[in-house]
C-alpha cells in the first residue's frame, strides 16, 4: 500500500512523535523504501504455518506470590527529568511526578 504524508502524520501521532510537514515528507520516502522491502513477504504462501514468537517453546514461569522488590522511590526519583532550562529542578514534588494538568 502506498503511504501519503497524511498517513505518516497519523502513524506518528499514534507513536506520540511530533513531525513537521517537511519531516513527514522526508520520512515518507524512507519508509516507502523499507515497506517495499517488507512487501517481499507477501509472495510466500504461509497457509497453515503456526506463527513463531520465540525460538524456544517454553511456558511462562510462575513464582510464589511474595514481595521481592524493596521500595527505592528516592533512588528512582533522583533521575526524574530535568525541567526548566539548565536548572537543577526535577519533575518531582513530595514523592510525586509532575506532569501538565490532565483533569480540570
Amino acid at each position: 500500500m502506498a503511504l501519503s504524508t497524511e498517513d505518516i502524520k497519523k502513524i506518528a501521532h499514534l507513536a506520540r512523535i511530533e513531525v513537521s510537514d517537511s519531516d513527514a515528507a522526508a520520512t515518507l520516502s524512507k519508509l516507502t523504501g523499507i515497506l517495499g522491502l517488507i512487501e517481499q513477504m507477501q509472495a510466500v504462501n504461509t497457509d497453515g504455518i503456526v506463527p513463531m514468537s520465540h525460538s524456544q517453546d517454553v511456558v511462562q514461569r510462575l513464582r510464589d506470590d511474595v514481595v521481592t522488590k524493596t521500595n527505592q522511590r528516592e533512588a528512582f526519583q533522583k533521575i526524574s527529568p530535568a525541567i526548566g532550562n539548565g536548572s537543577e529542578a526535577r519533575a518531582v514534588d513530595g514523592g510525586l511526578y509532575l506532569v501538565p494538568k490532565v483533569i480540570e
Partner: protein
Amino acid sequence: MINSSLKTLAQMLANKEISSVELTQTFLNRIDAYNPEINAYIALDHDRTLAQAKAADARIAAGSATPLTGIPIAQKDIFCAQGWKTTCGSKMLENFIAPYDAHVITQFDNAGAVNLGKTNMDEFAMGSSNETSYFGGVKNPWDFSRVPGGSSGGSAAAVAARLCAAATGTDTGGSIRQPASLCGFTGLKPTYGVVSRYGMIAFASSLDQAGPMAKSAEDCALMMNVMAGFDERDSTSLNRDKEDYTRELYNSNPNKPLQGLRVGLPKEFFAEGLDAGVAKVIEDAIAEYKKLGAEIVEISLPNTSLSIPVYYVLAPAEASSNLSRYDGVRYGHRASEYTDLMDMYCKSRAEGFGAEVKRRILIGTYVLSAGYYDAYYLKAQQIRRLIAQDFEEAFKKCDVIMGPAAPSTAFKAGEKVDDPVAMYLQDIYTISTNLAGLPGMSVPAGFATSADGKPLPVGLQIIGNYFDEARMLNVAHQYQQVTDWHAQAPTLDKPEGTA
C-alpha cells in the same frame, strides 16, 4: 600485555607479575591517548574503574580470584551499571544514571572483573555502522575513514584497538558478529535465552541477546562462563545447568582435531551480493577446515532472503512497544516547552529520538496498527518459523554451518547512512540466526583489499545448533591454533603530542 590472552593475563595477575591496577592503568592510558579520535567509549570514570582494580588486587592477594578477577572489560552502553551514565547511544537517555545493575554487569562484578567504561553504539542498537549514535560515529581502527560496524561499534573498536582486554556486546540482528567481522576479532551471539536480558535496554525482546567480543575463541569461552546462566528476573532466561564453555577446547586429537566434523555451506550465503574479496577469504578458511579434518556438506537455507523483510517487521514492532516507555514523565529527556500532556509526550519523543529510531518506531506502529496486523506481523511470524525450519533441516546434515558474517568489509563513513535499505542488507547473513534463536560467531579469517588498497578484516561466520556454543568455540579455537588472523591488530599512529 595489551595483546595477551585473558588466560595469560590471569596467570600474570596470579604470579604477581602485574597488578590489576597496573593492567587497568595501561588500558586507561591507551584510552586517554586514542579515544578522542576513535570515540569507542562514551562514558569513562577512571576513579571508579581504578577502585575496582584495587579491590580485585585485594581479592587476588586473598586467594579468592576467579579467571576474570582484575581483568579490564569494556561494557556496551546498553547495560545498566549502577552509578554509571547509561545512554544506549541516545539523547533520550543522555543524563540517565542507572539506578541498578544489569544481570551481565552483576556477573562481571561478582567475578571481580574491572569495568573500564561504557562503549559507544548505534542509538538503541538500531544500526550497522554506529553512525546513528547521538554521541557521534566510531572509527574503525584498521582505517579511520571507515565504520566499525554496528550496533556494538564502540566495543568492536575497543577490542580491535586494544583499548580493553575484552568487551561485551548485544546482537539483535548481527550487532556482535558484523562489527566483529569488520574490525577483525572474535564475537559470539549465544542461543536466545542463555544470557539474561535483565537491565539490558530493550530493543526487540524476542531477538536481543548479549555475548562476548574478544581477541580469541578461548577468551570468548571465558567470558561466556561469566555471562551465561539462569536469571529469574528475565522471563525468557532459560533454566539450564551451568556450563563450562572452555570444556571442549583442550582435549582434541592433535593431528586431526576436527576429524569427522560436518560443516554445512549454505549455497544462499555464497550467492549474489557477496563481495568477491570476502568470498575468497571464506573459501580459504573452509580449505583450512578441511585440513583440520572437517567434511564439507552443501546445504540450503532457502528462505535466507526473506529474513530481512521478516526482521524489519518484527524488530520494529517490538521496538515500537519497548520504546513507548520513553515518555518524558519519570526519567529520560523531557521537552522544555509544551502545552499539555499529549504535547509533552510528542515533543519529548521527537527531540529525544534520532532519525533511524523514529523510522523504526513508525514502521512498528504501522505494522501493528488496526487492519494490518495479519498482513505484516502475523505473516512475519509465520515466515520466521519457516526460517527456523530451514535450519532444523540443515542441522540434520551437518554439525555447524559456515559462511561469511557480512557481505563486505568495512565501508566508508557516510556511505550508507542515507539509504536505510542498503544498510539493512549488511545483516543478510546474520539476521536469520536471531530469528531462529540460534548461536552464531564471527571469527577473523583474513583480509580483503579495498578499492583504495587497504587490507580490511573479514570474518568467517560459524552457526551452531541450539546450546552448541561449547562446540562452536572449539571449532573456532582449533582454527586459531593453526592460523594467526585473530592475533593481528591494527597499527595505530601515535596521537599528536605523545612520545
